[in-house]
Each structure stands twice: as structure tokens, then as C-alpha cells.
């Protein structure tokens, strides 16, 4: 098992090297001169040149690259020019926020979409099948910023059930002492139930927004995969031996249908983690996505490079864990590893 993980991580190395090179080059190719940006609109050419020398941007590209890689090796992703803090610190503070949001959204989505997909498959053509289709279609066709704003309008502005949609926790509460970086879990660890409540109520709306969006692929895949499995011969054997419908559907059919579902969840997760900028913007969520976009607009290289690299590594790790999950689900996959 450990050897398998090691081998998989080794094969990921070339793609990480590729990501490092490509992001470095891309940020240099992008239009916009960071020196001019940071020197300010009124700066003289001499001042700009001075900033450029300070940033090391006047040195040849290979030299810049090597100092960047040397920094990486020391765990130094550079310093953000806009905030003045190390990129590592910024990402470390913001990644848990994105991860908490995405994970919670996916769990909620999974809990709704999977039973819905299973029911739609067993009662093909019934009202629940149609409900599944309508929900899925509506979920993907509504853009997240629209669903997000709609939820804010209804639950904050009209009814006032939800707290004001700014940030991860109400201003009157202080965040729980950081252990995992997930406020909900940290609050539980600290037994600070006030903070837990506050964190949960802040999470509710953005999580719902994400869940509505990611419902569709999971529900559709669950349904399609279940339909395929339910018509296979071992299901007939299970029925012919008088097994209870729940055993047939859950233990026999669903476990066999799980692989495509897990694949989809992995893809949705890695996609949402870095790409739900819009949700983060609507709910003023201090996540990595909005951080990276701001840095990009400001031609602030270091955070952008750090962000892309972090995402690439996360993507590799998520895929690795999905592959390991395959082996847990299906014994036939284990041998091929």
C-alpha cells in the first residue's frame, strides 16, 4: 500500500515540475508591469527602474527562475507585494476557509444527490425521477452568483434568518483557536458552542449555493451508474435468493455503482476548491480563489504562482486518494495498482 502511494507520488513529480515552469513563464508573459504598478501612477521612470531592481525583475529570466526554485526548496513562495506578507502565510490562512466551504458544500450535495439518484434509478420514470432531473437541470443552469444573491436576498434581507453574509464568523465572536483551520471543527475542539453556532450560520448560505450547483453531476452520475448496475446479472441472483430490497440496493447495487460517483465527486471537489471565486466574492469569504484573482489583477506574481502550485499539488493528492478509494471499493482495482 505504502509502496503504491510512493510510486504514485513519484509519477506526479514531472507534472509538478511542469506546473512550476509553466506558471513561472506565464506570469512573466502576462501583460502588466508589476514595477510600474507598485511604483504608483505618479512615479518617474527612475523610480520604476528602482522598484524593478528591488524586485529582481531586471535580472535575466533563468536567473529569476533559479532564485524562485531555490526559494521553493526552502518552502518560500515569495512575498505578496499587495499585502506585504509571505505568500505561504496567506495561503495557509485562506486555504482552510476554501476547503471548509467546499467540503461542507460537497457533503451536503452528496447527502441530497446520492439518495435522489438512487431513488430515481429504482423508480425510473416516476415523479422522483422527474424531480431529480428538474433539480439537476435547475442547479447547473443557475449561475452560482445568482443563486448566492437570491439566497442572501431571501434569507438575510427579506426574512432575516441568516446573518449578514460577510466572512466566516460573526464579528462579535472571535474565531476559535486554530487547530485544523476549519472553524466548525476548531470550535468543537474548543467546546465553544457560541462560535460553532456563529460559524455554522455563516456557512449555511454559501454551502447551500455550492450544493445546489454541484448537485447535478453527482445525482446524474449516481442515477446512470445505478441503472447500469441494477440491470446486471448478480442483482438478479440477489433478488432470486430473496435478499431484502435495501440489501440489494445498498450492499449489492450501490457499492458497485460507487466508482463513477467517487470519480465525479473528486473532480467536482478539485474544481470547486480553486474556482468558486464567485461564491467567495458574494459572501466575502476569505478563500484562496478570490485571493488569487486579486493578486492576478495587481500583477502580483508570487501569490499567483503559489496559488497555482498549491492547487496542482492538491489536485494530485485528491486524485491519489480517489485512486486509493477505488481499491477500497473494488478489489479488482487493487491488483492493477
Amino acid at each position: 500500500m505504502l509502496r503504491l502511494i510512493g510510486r504514485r507520488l513519484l509519477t506526479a513529480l514531472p507534472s509538478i515540475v511542469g506546473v512550476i515552469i509553466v506558471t513561472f513563464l506565464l506570469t512573466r508573459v502576462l501583460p502588466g508591469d508589476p514595477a510600474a504598478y507598485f511604483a504608483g501612477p505618479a512615479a518617474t521612470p527612475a523610480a520604476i527602474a528602482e522598484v524593478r531592481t528591488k524586485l529582481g525583475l531586471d535580472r535575466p529570466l533563468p536567473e529569476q527562475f533559479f532564485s524562485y526554485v531555490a526559494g521553493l526548496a526552502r518552502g518560500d513562495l515569495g512575498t505578496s507585494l499587495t499585502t506585504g506578507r509571505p505568500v505561504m502565510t496567506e495561503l495557509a490562512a485562506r486555504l482552510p476557509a476554501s476547503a471548509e466551504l467546499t467540503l461542507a458544500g460537497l457533503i451536503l450535495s452528496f447527502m441530497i444527490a446520492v439518495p435522489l439518484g438512487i431513488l430515481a434509478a429504482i423508480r425510473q420514470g416516476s415523479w422522483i425521477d422527474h424531480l431529480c432531473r428538474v433539480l439537476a437541470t435547475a442547479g447547473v443552469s443557475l449561475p452560482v452568483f445568482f443563486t448566492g444573491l437570491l439566497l442572501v436576498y431571501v434569507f438575510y434581507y427579506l426574512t432575516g434568518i441568516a446573518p449578514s453574509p460577510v466572512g466566516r464568523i460573526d464579528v462579535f465572536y472571535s474565531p476559535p483557536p486554530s487547530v485544523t483551520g476549519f472553524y466548525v471543527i476548531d470550535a468543537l475542539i474548543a467546546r465553544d458552542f457560541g462560535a460553532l453556532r456563529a460559524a455554522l450560520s455563516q456557512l449555511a448560505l454559501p454551502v447551500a449555493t455550492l450544493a445546489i450547483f454541484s448537485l447535478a453531476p453527482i445525482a446524474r452520475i449516481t442515477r446512470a451508474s445505478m441503472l447500469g448496475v441494477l440491470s446486471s446479472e448478480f442483482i438478479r441472483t440477489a433478488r432470486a435468493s430473496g435478499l431484502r430490497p435495501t440489501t440489494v440496493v445498498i450492499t449489492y447495487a450501490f457499492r458497485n455503482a460507487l466508482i463513477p460517483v467517487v470519480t465525479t465527486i473528486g473532480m467536482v471537489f478539485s474544481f470547486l476548491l480553486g474556482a468558486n471565486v464567485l461564491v467567495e466574492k458574494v459572501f466575502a469569504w476569505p478563500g484562496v480563489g478570490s485571493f488569487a484573482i486579486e493578486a492576478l489583477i495587481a500583477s502580483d506574481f508570487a501569490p499567483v504562482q503559489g496559488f497555482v502550485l498549491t492547487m496542482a499539488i492538491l489536485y494530485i493528492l485528491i486524485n491519489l486518494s480517489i485512486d486509493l478509494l477505488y481499491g477500497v471499493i473494488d478489489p479488482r482495482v487493487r491488483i492493477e495498482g
Partner: protein
Amino acid sequence: MSDLLDIRDLCVEFETRKGIVRAVEKIDISLKKGETLGIVGESGSGKSVTSYAAMRILDRAGRITSGSIVYSGIDLATAGEAEMRDLRGREMSMIFQNPRAALNPIRQIGRQIEDVLIQHVQATRAEARRRAIAALEQVRIANPEERYNAYPFQLSGGMCQRVVIALALACRPQLLIADEPTTGLDVTTQKAIMDLIVDLTREHGMSTILITHDLGLAAAYCDRVTVMEKGRVVECASSQDIFGSPQHAYTRKLMRATPRPGALLQDLLPEDSPPQSPANAQSTAARSDTPLLRIEGLIKEYPRMSAGGWLEKLRGSNPADEKPFRAVDDVSFDVGRGETVGLVGESGCGKSTTSMMIMRLLDPTQGRILFDGTDLALFPAKEFARNPLRRRIQMVFQDPTESLNPRYTAMRAIADPILQAADRPRRDAVRARCEELAGLVGLPLNLLDRLPHQLSGGQKARVGIARALALNPDLVVLDEPTAALDVSVQAVVLNLLQSLKERLGMSYLFVSHDLHVVRLLCDRVIVMRSGRIVEQGKCEDVLERPASAYTRELIDAIPKRPV
């Protein structure tokens, strides 16, 4: 004796896109306690649907519209789902064709047996494991404790069928329905499985329904036989009577079409069919000094897969022996011009690997494949498709459905080799050639524009044969060309192959596991086992007076009708 199962006036309908189809039409079947009943019929006869109706496991499109199915006093046709669930597996069980697919691929086989035991309260969770192992032991699986943890993909087909039987018999049911339990298994495995079923059902005094397309199998193992055709029962009598003096014309037709010792190819066709071209295979085989195909010392090795090593490692043995696996081990034989040579053996004996190497789809590890004097083994498999010699060797595949592109019409399928071979063939010339070929194989011209799913099994087989003949080959490799066909269709296709060979003067290499069919079609036969040739010689010599013990074992395993 009272009837255990009594089916009266049963009708089953299916809702399809083309409207309602009646699959079973007013049939009566009864089964006594301890009796073994065979239900025999070709595909579409409704024999499987009848058994699914009795178990009430028809799929959602199927429905029992009228009639009764009384099982020891309970009418199953109207019983509630909860009641049925209690009966299934505990009172009545079923085993299926394709045993590997019939088991949950990702659950240990022992656990699957436990599921049934616990469901029917035959065992508590604490003792379920012991009971499951006992069930495996009962079906004569060696090392049941170890096998308990195995997954279906780690077991052979015959082994999987034993597990399915263990699963079906775990709760000691009264009735066992076996739906084609040995189709697709080797003949020796078939015998072992059938003997096992008979022993176990007799031991527990169970009744059995054996559903099969194989008359010989039904004759050998059943007390009574019911013959079905197109959803109706045409005849029902004791095994002796039905084979001694079949009453119904359809039964007689089926019996004629079944290959058997002593019958000639022509004998398989219905009595009133027009006589074929003068059939005398031996005389037309033009004897020539140089054989068309000469195989010399052919070897195919595969490196041992690490997959096997994984299991070995679990067991703690050392997988370090890196000796490659020999699928084909030093095989030499000839195929003369105009000759039909049968290549016989059980699955895994290397017969398919050998034919793939002759077709140059696989590269041999060692050895020569001399085709008309040229060593084909010198051309890499990847390049052979563009070799002019490739046209002279063609192949007919096992499954007529799977071997046709579902989006190609019959005409396009037949034209495929022509379009591959010629540079820019004229459209009307191709059409004319396809029509000529269709005429040759007896495919009505109006079917040429149909897609495979609009054709019957026999028609698809004809398309496959026409495609193989399109470039006037000298050698046709027939890989079990009739294994997926009903016996009456098989009879027609075999006769067609024979008359085509006589007319066109080709040679056949006929790969098969069915010795009866080989006897009908082949001049010479080669028996293979574990990659080696066990015996080869003239068909009559090998099959009537087998020299090797293995050939004798194969012949003995063929089900024989009671005398």
C-alpha cells in the same frame, strides 16, 4: 406423489417499444417432489421467462397476465412481494448461466452466502461464517476456509458456478431452477457441475427444473422433458419416450438438428429440406504434396503477470519464479489444400492463441507459420494488415452479434474487407460483389441494408461468413462459429460452411470445443491441452479410437442419452 409446482394456463407479456409481446402463452407445467424436469427450447421459446415468472423476478417490462403458479398450495402468481421474498432462496432457488456475472464482483463469496443465510434466519451472525464454509464444502470446493475470502474474479468459471450452487442450496430449498447452468463451461466442467447438481438434489430430495437448449444434456439428466417453442409447450413426456418416439414435428426437428454420433452433416437438416450439393467432403479435398499451412514448433510465451503474484503474496508463497507462461508450447501441424482441420480443446488450452497467431494478430515467441511457402512469422503483427497475404487468410468469429459493427449495415459489413483491400473501388462494383456474396451464403438481398440488431442470429452468422469470403481467401479460420447459435440454425450454418468449402475449394481451420460438430465438419482433428498437442489424426480415428486418455475423457464427458 403430489405436485410440488403446478403451472396452469400461464401467460406472460412484455411491454416493448413495438407494443405488447406475448412471451409465454397458456402453458401448463407440473413438477413432482423429487423429480427432475427438463425444459428444452431454442432462444425465444419462453423457457427462461417461465422460470423467471415462477420466481417472480421478471424485469419491470414483464407481467404475468393470467394463469396460476401453485407451489405447495401457494399461488405464486398473486402472492405478495414480501411473501415471495421469503420463499425465494429458502423454498425455491435459482442458478444461472454465466456464473461469474451472477455473483457480486466486489463482495467475498463467503459473505454472499452469509447474506442469504442471515436473510432467511437460517443462521445467526455468529455462526454464519461456519455455515457458509460448510456450504462451500458441500459443493466440493477445496480449502473452503480460504476460498471464503475470495472474490469471484479470482475463481474459474466452474468454481464460480459451484459458488452459485452453494448460494442457491444454502437454505436447503425444495425446488432448484437451473437456467442453462453449464452453457459456456468446458465439457468436463459441465459434467462435474451437472453431477454435483444431481448428487446434491438427490441427497436432499429436491425437485429440479433444468432449463437448457441442449437436448443431450436434458436427456442425460432429466426424468421428464418439456419442449417449448415460441412461448408454447409443444410436447411433454418422459425422457425415454421423448427421445425414443418424439411426437411433435418441432421436437423431431430439434432432435435431427442436434449433432450426434453417427449422423452426417446432411442429416441435421429438416427432412423436407432440398438436398445440398453432392456432399462428400473427403473426395473433394484435393490432395497436394505441399500443405497450404504448415505450423512448425510454434511457441507463445507470456510473462507471468504480477496480478497472480499478488494473490501468491497473500498466501505467503514466493512469486519469484519468473519463468514465463507458455500459452502455446511447441505446436506443429499442417492444413492441406481443401482440407478442414479441427482444433479442439478446453478453455485455456491455447487453441485461440494458436489461431490468433496464424491470423497474425499476435506475434509468436518462436516457430514458423508457413503459408503457401512464405513464413508469416517473419512479418510483425502490426504490419501484417497491409500485407497482400493477409487477404488470403480470413476469419469467422464466435459471436455473430459482437463481431459486427452495430452501426454498419449488413452490406457495409460485408464490403469492409473489399474497401480495406482495394484502393478506390467503384461503388456499384462493391454493391454487385456484396450481392453476389449474399447469394452465396443464402442471405436474402433485401436484408443487405439492415443493421445487425434487425437481423436474426443465423442471418448475422451469414453476414460474418460472407465478410470472410469477400476476398476469396484460401484459408478461413473459424473460431467456434456456431457456439452462440441455436441447434437448428447451427445445422444450417454448418451445412452452408461445408457446401461453400466444396464450391470454393478453401481450407478451414475449425476451432471448437464441441467434438460432435468437429466430427461432422472436419477431415482431421487436433486435440490440444495446456498449450500442447495431445493427439492428432483423422477424425474417425481420433474420435472413435482415441489414443490418449485426455481425448477419451473429453469424449466421455459429452452427455449421453439414457439407453
